[in-house]
Structures are given as structure tokens and as C-alpha cells.
């Protein structure tokens, strides 16, 4: 087990290193993308630009630049090329909105995903199953930005039930915080509820065919006991694993579309606006945070699975 964890850790570090290099290179590959010109602005003289190059080290070889950027990221002193703000502070400022969105939506989609998954599995093949399946497929087929725009238009503009986007910190006004977030929570959840209920439905149906379920039934347990104690316990694991990964993605700016449509000023929106300005440092930091979260959570899930299923360790 120890060796398995160590192997997984080494792989994790390698993946994180590769991700940071890849992100750095994606933006370095832009032609005319000299960051010194962007930092200097339109009115900078040649001498000033040369000085900026010297100061930031843009005249150094690319691997030196990479190492220096990484040092700054881990120091927390990295600054934006175009806006001049400290990236760490800016991300901290954006984080409450993103966390509020992620936690609220995460609870909603996990709860309804499980409820719909169990209901469709129990009623498999019946009318209710068909109905919920169609609903789930519609949910999976709806782009978040389209759904969000419609919700804002009808519920916000036409009927005036919800505010027209924006974010209010919970410390400032909890009621406003809730009314501003209820629509983004639900819109972001729709897609995930669709996916999770489908995944859970098929894993429950698969598990019900296993030998241990037949044994439980032979022991005389009620269907309800079999479902709660044996089937659900085994079927929930993949859903929870999926939830961990999706949650990590949303925290790391994966909800970029929801945040943009509802104007939440979260991490995703910060990433989107930085990418538009070809501003490398904020994007690099956000991508690395997300990647960290995803890689660590998926490694945890692997270890968890290995603990529960000895066959994986031997592979």
C-alpha cells in the first residue's frame, strides 16, 4: 500500500510539472506576444521597454523565465502583466464568490443527482423512469450559458423574481447573497444532475445483478434493506468520485461560463478576462490551482479505491 501511494505521489508531481510547463508554453507561443510591450503600455519608449525586459527577465532564455515565474508563484509575489495587480490578492478576492457558487451548487447537484438516480433505477423501464430520463437528457443537452441567459431574462428582467446577476458577499447581506446565488446554483446544477442520475442509475442496475445482492435477498432482507445497505453503498462510490473531481474543477474556475453569464466576479471570470488580455500570470496561477485540486483529489480517489479493492494495487 505504501509503495502504491508513493508511486501515485511521484506521478502527481510529474503531472503538475507538465501542466505548468504546458500552460507557460501555450502563451509563450503567441507571436507578437512580447509581454514587455503590454506591461509598458502604448506610450512606453524603447528605453522603458528595454528596462521592463531587464526587470522581468524577458530577455533571458525561456527556461530561466519559467523558473523565475514559478518562484514568484510560490512566493505569492507574482503580478499581472497588463493590470499590475498582485495575482494572489486578486484570486483571494474572487474566491468567496466561486466558493459560494461551488458549495451551494455542489450540494444541490449531488442531492438531486442521487435522488433522481435512485428513483430511475427503482422504476427502471416504467413511465417515471422514462420521464426523468428524458428530463436528464434535456439537462445534459442544455448549454449553461443559454440556460443562464434565459433564466436571467425571464426570471430577472420579465418577472423580476431574481436580481440581474452580480454577487453580494455573505458577510455583507446573507439574504441578498442567497437571492443572487440561487439562479446560478440551479443553472450550474442542471447539467451535473443529468450526468449523475444517469451514472448512478446504471451502476445501481449493474450492482443489482451481483452475487452478493442475490445472497442478501436469499437471507431474506427486504428490498429496502438491500438497496440501502448493499446496493447503494457500492454504487455511490463512483458518483462520489465524480463529485470530487467536478467540485475541484468548479472551484478552480471550471464554472467559467456560469460566472460569466451571471457576472459573479469569481475565479472563472478572472481567468476568462485574463485570457482575453493574454495576461499569462493570473491564468497560469488559476490553471495550476485547479490542476492541483483535480490531481490531488483524483489521487485520493485512487488510494481510496485501492484501499477498498485490493485488485487495483496489484495492477
Amino acid at each position, binding site marked *: 500500500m505504501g509503495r502504491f501511494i508513493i508511486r501515485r505521489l511521484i*506521478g502527481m508531481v*510529474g*503531472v503538475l510539472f*507538465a*501542466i505548468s510547463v*504546458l*500552460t507557460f508554453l*501555450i*502563451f509563450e*507561443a*503567441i*507571436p*507578437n*506576444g512580447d509581454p514587455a510591450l503590454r506591461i509598458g503600455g502604448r506610450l512606453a519608449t524603447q528605453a522603458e521597454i528595454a528596462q521592463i525586459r531587464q526587470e522581468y527577465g524577458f530577455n533571458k532564455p525561456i527556461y530561466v523565465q519559467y523558473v523565475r515565474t514559478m518562484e514568484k508563484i510560490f512566493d505569492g509575489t507574482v503580478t499581472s502583466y497588463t493590470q499590475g495587480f498582485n495575482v494572489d490578492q486578486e484570486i483571494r478576492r474572487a474566491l468567496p464568490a466561486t466558493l459560494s457558487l461551488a458549495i451551494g451548487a455542489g450540494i444541490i447537484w449531488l442531492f438531486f443527482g442521487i435522488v433522481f438516480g435512485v428513483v430511475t433505477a427503482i422504476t427502471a423501464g416504467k413511465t417515471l423512469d422514462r420521464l426523468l*430520463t*428524458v428530463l436528464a*437528457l*434535456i439537462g*445534459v*443537452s*442544455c*448549454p*449553461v*450559458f*443559454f440556460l443562464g*441567459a*434565459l433564466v*436571467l*431574462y425571464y426570471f430577472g*428582467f*420579465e418577472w423580476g423574481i431574481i436580481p440581474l446577476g452580480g454577487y453580494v458577499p455573505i458577510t455583507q447581506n446573507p439574504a441578498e447573497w442567497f437571492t443572487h446565488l440561487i439562479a446560478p446554483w440551479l443553472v450550474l446544477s442542471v447539467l451535473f444532475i443529468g450526468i449523475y442520475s444517469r451514472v448512478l442509475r446504471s451502476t445501481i442496475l*449493474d450492482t443489482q*445483478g451481483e452475487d452478493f445482492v442475490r445472497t442478501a435477498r436469499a437471507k431474506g432482507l427486504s428490498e429496502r434493506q438491500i438497496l440501502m445497505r448493499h446496493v447503494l453503498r457500492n454504487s455511490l462510490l463512483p458518483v462520489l468520485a465524480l463529485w470530487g473531481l467536478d467540485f475541484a*474543477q468548479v472551484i*478552480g*474556475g*471550471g464554472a*467559467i*461560463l456560469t460566472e*460569466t*453569464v451571471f457576472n459573479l466576479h469569481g475565479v*472563472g471570470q478572472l*481567468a*476568462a478576462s485574463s*485570457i*482575453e488580455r*493574454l495576461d499569462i500570470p493570473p*491564468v497560469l496561477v*488559476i*490553471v495550476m490551482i*485547479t*490542476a492541483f485540486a*483535480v*490531481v490531488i483529489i*483524483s489521487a485520493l480517489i485512487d488510494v481510496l479505491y485501492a484501499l477498498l479493492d485490493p485488485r487495483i494495487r496489484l*495492477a
Partner: protein
Amino acid sequence: MSIDAGTKSIGSEFSGEIPPELRGGEGDVPPGIGPYELAWRRLRRNRVALAFGGLFLLMVVLCLLAPVYAHDIAHTTPAAENITGTVKVGGKNEYIVSLIGIPIGPTWHSHYFLGADANGRDVAVRLLYGGRNSLQIGFVATFITMIMATILGIAAGYFRGLTDGVISRGLDVIWAFPAVLLGVALGVTLAVSGIDIGPIKISGNSLFVPAFIVGFVTIPYVAKPIRAQVLQMRDREFVDVARQQGLSHARIMFGEILPNVASTIIVFIPLILANAILLEAALSFLGAGVQPPNPSWGTMISDGVAEIPAAIHLTLVPGIMLVLTVLGINVFGDGVRDALDPKAKVRV
């Protein structure tokens, strides 16, 4: 020699065709019916899936007919602007774009059937042309994903060891990126620079750039399950037999293993196609996908959202078209998956 002939007839041809000796007689269902024939019979009985598959086909045909519609019915082009003109609706002339800049809604006539956009362009015409772009990107991206994922997944599962390590970690790298974030980052930079890898040169505003990006970021979603399946399969007897016969690695991988993971690959195609069309729309919505003046459903929704609340039809029209198309693929794909599932309880 006889063993060789035996393995060949069962597993070496990658096609839906059933070998003659396994094919059933006329009318009745024989015990030796092939898996794809069985799946096809199950699918044919699933009316809902077929209906939605038909819906998707209808969308594809409509979009292919875009030039015909533009030329013979709407008498305009997707780029033709008309800000000052008028159009006859119910016997009286109305401004295409009103004096305060609000475009006309659906007229339900041949001209401006679904209304106009802020530049006085015909929404219905742009919808069909945009659909061509969205679908084209979807198909090309799906093709890229499936080919790459199949090759990488089979190679990783078959060779294991170092090859698997390199491929799997590479997939992890793509996977750990949030797909939209990676797509937007690639989209913005490639829209400036284009793609220039050796012999492949693509300019920045080409449709192949978003297709390449969308295809690239979804590779792990298919490659990982294929790898897992091959990993289990490579110790099975038929692979051992093939190896003892001295078949080359390439022939074992693509002649013996590929036909056995083919059903997984087929199940993924509709999923990936739906996902690719949605991801393209998302990238275009954020300005990192299809570049103007090319229309696509994503860019049209993006333009439409900018006109909310004055002209909601500019968001509704492309959005509904997009949802219907993707829904068609998803429901049909669901039916295909059920049909190919060997454990399915549906009677033939």
C-alpha cells in the same frame, strides 16, 4: 492453419458484417446471431431513439440545405446587412431594424422568417449557415478524438509499462485542465497564431482551429476507458493465441483487440459528438471559438445575449436549435448504448 482460420473469422475483421456461418436464416432468430445484428434489431424496436435520431438527421439536412434556403427562399446571404430597409409584414411595411436599434422579431414569412439581428441580417439564414459550421466542427472534432483516443488507449493498455506510463500521465495532464479553460486558452492563442506543426499549416480564423481544440481536450474521456478495457483483455486467451502465432503487435492491437473494444468506441461516438458541439458553442460564446465573420450557434447566442432584453429571439433561436440537435444525438446515443449492452433485458 485451422486455428488461424478460426480466430480470423471471429475477431479479425473490424466491421459490422456477420460472418456467413454465424448469420441467421430467413425470418426466425437463430442462436448464432452476431452482436451487431442483435444490437441493430434492439435499436430498431426503440421508437423514441429512432425518432430523435431522425430529428438530428433532419437538422443536418436542413443545415446542408442552407445555400438553397438562402438563395431560393430568403433571397439573401448570411452576411448581407440591411439596417435601413423595410419588410412587408401582414400588408404593411415595417423597419427591419427599428429607429432605436431594435431588430424585428420573427415574421413567419419567407423574408426574415425568424427575424433579423442587430445588423439587419436574416437570422434563419445565419442559423442554417452557423449550423453547418457547428456541425462540421463537431464531426471533425469527434473524428480527431476517436482516432487519437483509440490509438492511445489501445497502445497504453496493450504495451503497459513505460508506454502506458507516458500516455497515461499525458492524458492526466489534459484531464487535470478544466476543459473550457484549456479550450479558451488554446483558442485565444491559436486564433492569433494559427496552427503550424511541420506540414500542417492552418490559419487562425479557420474552422479547423476550434475543431482541433475541441477534439484535443476530450481525448482522455475516451482513451481512459478504452485503456482500462484493453488492460483487462490483453491477458485473455485469444490474445495469447495470436501472440503464439507470431502476429505482429500492430496486428494483435488492431486486428484482435480493436474489434473487441469496438462497441465501447461506438457508444462513445454520439456522446463525444454532443459534447463537441456544446464545447464549440461554449468556446465561441467566450470569443475563443469560431471567429467572425463566420457564424456558428455559439457566436449567434453570444451576439444574442448582448441584445437582451431588446431582442430575446436572437438568443432563443440559435439556442433552441442547438439544444434540439444535441438532444437528438443524446437520446439516439442512449438508445445505441442500450442496444449494444449485452446485459440488456430487451427481447430481440
